[in-house]
């Protein structure tokens, strides 16, 4: 790429052709404050916080979207710029609620940080916040429009990354309001509950629907037996919310912390991920060998499930009937484990720690009651767990490491990679290959399906079969792939879709902020965790083998079908389906 030279604050620096001032400045180590800009989103120039002085231009220009040109002279922090920037932020603050101490994003708010960095000690114009009602109708996402600064990141996320376009801005000027079309409450609006908007919201306008209070109550009720499961992507991201850099594997501290919170058993969703591979792998083998509907689509990601129900209902027969690992876990915990441990399932509360907000909705689906009870009672995001750890006074940094409990705690490397895009595919192939061919894979690492490309394809030789696989993450990417499937192209056998960029590790319940670099660090940690596991194939997990021997029989058995498989609901794009009964417990959708 050809280079050009520009001058920033009197210093001559290189700038790539087609780069913006912000990109060139960042490259040169010059920080320019931003607010609506996000590394995952195209530049928008909505907030005007990144205004800079460009010699020869009449007005200040937004660095995030203004292109560089040869010889341009830029001042990023001149008196004129600082004054304008301060005014912009003061105006944003003028009707923003100022009770930061009672906000979920306290100390992790970009507006708060910006005000601090600009040294704002006085807001010259103060008006009352608009007094909009908080929308807590969704089981996953809560909207507080008073805290919205109209940066439009959530809109862009919903349309560009997720292809849902459920959010819009209506009205104009002071009356502008972000929300669902026609102000439909989120709980009944076109929304897949993925929470990607939360991850990119600079303020506390979008947060998860918290289950912290209910979980404390369950933990402190001596009558109840509390069981917790932790999703693969939690162990490589939780540290970020507790002061560690991205990419740290904290599995051993996570289990200790959960015991300190008071859980009676600390189990692993990874166990259920191995179980999913058994069921889903055998389902794939059955579809391929007995002429079932192909390609088979994975069904682990509840944001993806709601997406296909809304946008591609004609492809529902392609969707694996397997429940997600979270739900398989719940069903097994309240049946098999309850029996083994002699615990009354009515007195058992299953709590999930998930990187995901859509899991909250999934747990409340009416079909997720195979045990005779709601299989998973409460879902906490990684962020909520971090909050509880802090609240309990647990010093995470110096915590001793511990192991998961038996019999639902043992897992393999194949399970931990469920947390990264391509991981379910790779885990399934590790098992399917060996089951179909009867041979052992020389190398379990199937690099062809790894990576961060939005849509990836691979052909894997499985015995006589050239298995055509495809992987997509981010629902806009998924839509591109599905359009090909609908058109009858690709000839795929198996497709993995994860709703969130990077897979679960980039989920809507993960620590904020997110960026391609942060997600890559988390992915590297997941693959490292896989390498460190003594067993790396799901079908070799002894606890899974025991579960089949003692309880389920074999994969796709009648009992498996009853407990571990499900069906789906076609939905309109004008959905009005979900109602919340407003009780504390997350119940029927």
């Amino acid at each position, binding site marked *: 790429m050809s280079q050009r030279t520009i001058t920033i604050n009197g210093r001559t620096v290189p700038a790539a052709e087609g780069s913006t001032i912000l990109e060139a400045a960042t490259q040169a180590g010059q920080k320019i404050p931003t607010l609506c800009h996000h590394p995952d989103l195209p530049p928008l120039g909505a907030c005007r916080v990144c205004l800079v002085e460009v010699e020869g231009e009449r007005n200040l220009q937004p660095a995030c979207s203004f292109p560089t040109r040869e010889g341009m002279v830029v001042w990023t922090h001149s008196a004129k710029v600082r004054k304008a920037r301060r005014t912009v932020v003061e105006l944003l603050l003028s009707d923003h609620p100022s009770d930061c101490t009672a906000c979920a994003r306290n100390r992790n708010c970009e507006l708060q940080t910006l005000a601090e960095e600009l040294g704002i000690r006085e807001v010259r114009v103060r008006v009352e916040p608009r007094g909009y009602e908080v929308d807590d109708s969704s089981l996953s996402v809560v909207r507080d429009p008073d805290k919205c600064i109209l940066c439009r990141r959530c809109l862009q996320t919903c349309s560009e990354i997720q292809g849902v376009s*459920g959010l819009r801005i*209506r009205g104009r000027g002071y009356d502008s309001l972000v929300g669902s*079309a026609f102000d439909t409450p989120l709980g009944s609006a076109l929304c897949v509950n993925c929470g990607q908007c939360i991850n990119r919201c600079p303020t506390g306008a979008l947060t998860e629907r918290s289950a912290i209070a209910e979980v404390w109550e369950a933990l402190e009720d001596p009558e109840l037996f509390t069981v917790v499961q932790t999703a693969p992507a939690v162990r490589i991201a939780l540290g970020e919310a507790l002061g560690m850099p991205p990419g740290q594997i904290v599995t051993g501290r996570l289990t200790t912390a959960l015991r300190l919170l008071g859980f009676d058993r600390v189990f692993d969703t990874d166990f259920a991920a191995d179980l999913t591979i058994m069921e889903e792998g055998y389902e794939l083998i059955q579809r391929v060998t007995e002429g079932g509907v192909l390609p088979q689509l994975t069904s682990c990601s509840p944001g993806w499930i709601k997406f296909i129900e809304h946008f591609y209902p004609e492809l529902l027969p392609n969707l694996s009937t397997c429940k997600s690992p979270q739900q398989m876990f719940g069903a097994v915990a309240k049946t098999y484990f309850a029996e083994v441990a002699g615990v009354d399932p009515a007195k058992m509360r299953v709590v999930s720690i998930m990187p995901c907000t859509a899991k909250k909705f999934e747990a409340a689906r009416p079909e997720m009651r195979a045990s005779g009870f709601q299989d998973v009672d409460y879902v906490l995001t990684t962020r909520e767990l971090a909050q509880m750890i802090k609240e309990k006074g647990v010093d995470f940094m110096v915590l001793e490491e511990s192991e998961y409990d038996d019999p639902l705690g043992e897992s393999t490397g194949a399970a931990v990679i469920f947390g990264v895009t391509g991981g379910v595919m790779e885990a399934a192939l590790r098992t399917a290959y060996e089951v179909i061919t009867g041979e052992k894979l020389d190398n379990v690492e199937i690099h062809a399906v790894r990576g961060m490309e939005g849509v990836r394809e691979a052909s894997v030789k499985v015995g006589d079969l050239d298995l055509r696989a495809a992987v997509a993450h981010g629902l806009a990417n998924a839509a591109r792939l599905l359009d090909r499937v609908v058109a009858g192209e690709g000839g795929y056998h198996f497709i993995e879709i994860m709703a969130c960029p990077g897979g679960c590790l980039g989920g809507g319940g993960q620590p904020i902020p997110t960026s391609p670099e942060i997600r890559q660090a988390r992915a590297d940690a997941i693959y490292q965790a896989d390498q460190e596991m003594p067993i790396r194939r799901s079908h070799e997990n002894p606890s899974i083998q025991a579960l089949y021997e003692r309880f389920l029989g074999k994969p796709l058995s009648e009992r498996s079908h009853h407990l571990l498989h499900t069906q789906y609901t076609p939905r309109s794009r*004008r959905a009005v389906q979900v109602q919340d009964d407003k009780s504390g417990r997350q119940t029927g959708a």
Partner: protein
Amino acid sequence: MVAQGKCTECTQIEAAIDAIIEQKGPEPTSLIEILHAVQQELGFLPQSVQEYIAEKLNMPAGTVEGVVSFYTFFTTVPRGRHVIKVCQGTACYVRGGKRVLEAVVKHCGCGVGQTSEDRRFSVDIVRCLGACGLSPIMTVDDDIYERVKPTKIADILGKYD
């Protein structure tokens, strides 16, 4: 679909919208023209109509709503037979425009942006009509009333049925 039950009227409305979309071109870029024509036809753009247009143009309903709510020309509620616009620009405002508006609102029994119960009048405000020398000013349909006094509102509006 405009309505679940599919009344005859709904089918007719859908056919009318279809014809407009066909004529303007079923592209997202034709949206504003389509909205103008549909509003001309139906008098207003309720949610169901916006959703129908969004589906036909294969675009998010929120985008259509965003456009409709951005431009004051579009209305989502039925309009009266006559549209009153009271100027609230600076000159009109300081010369009694506010009291004129209050009198109009009182006479019609509906607020700004709304329509009177008998569907006779819709009340709007405008920010300037470019005739500040004649302030305060108001218009009813295409008729212009200059130096309006609040006491004359009943007389003026009495001419419209």
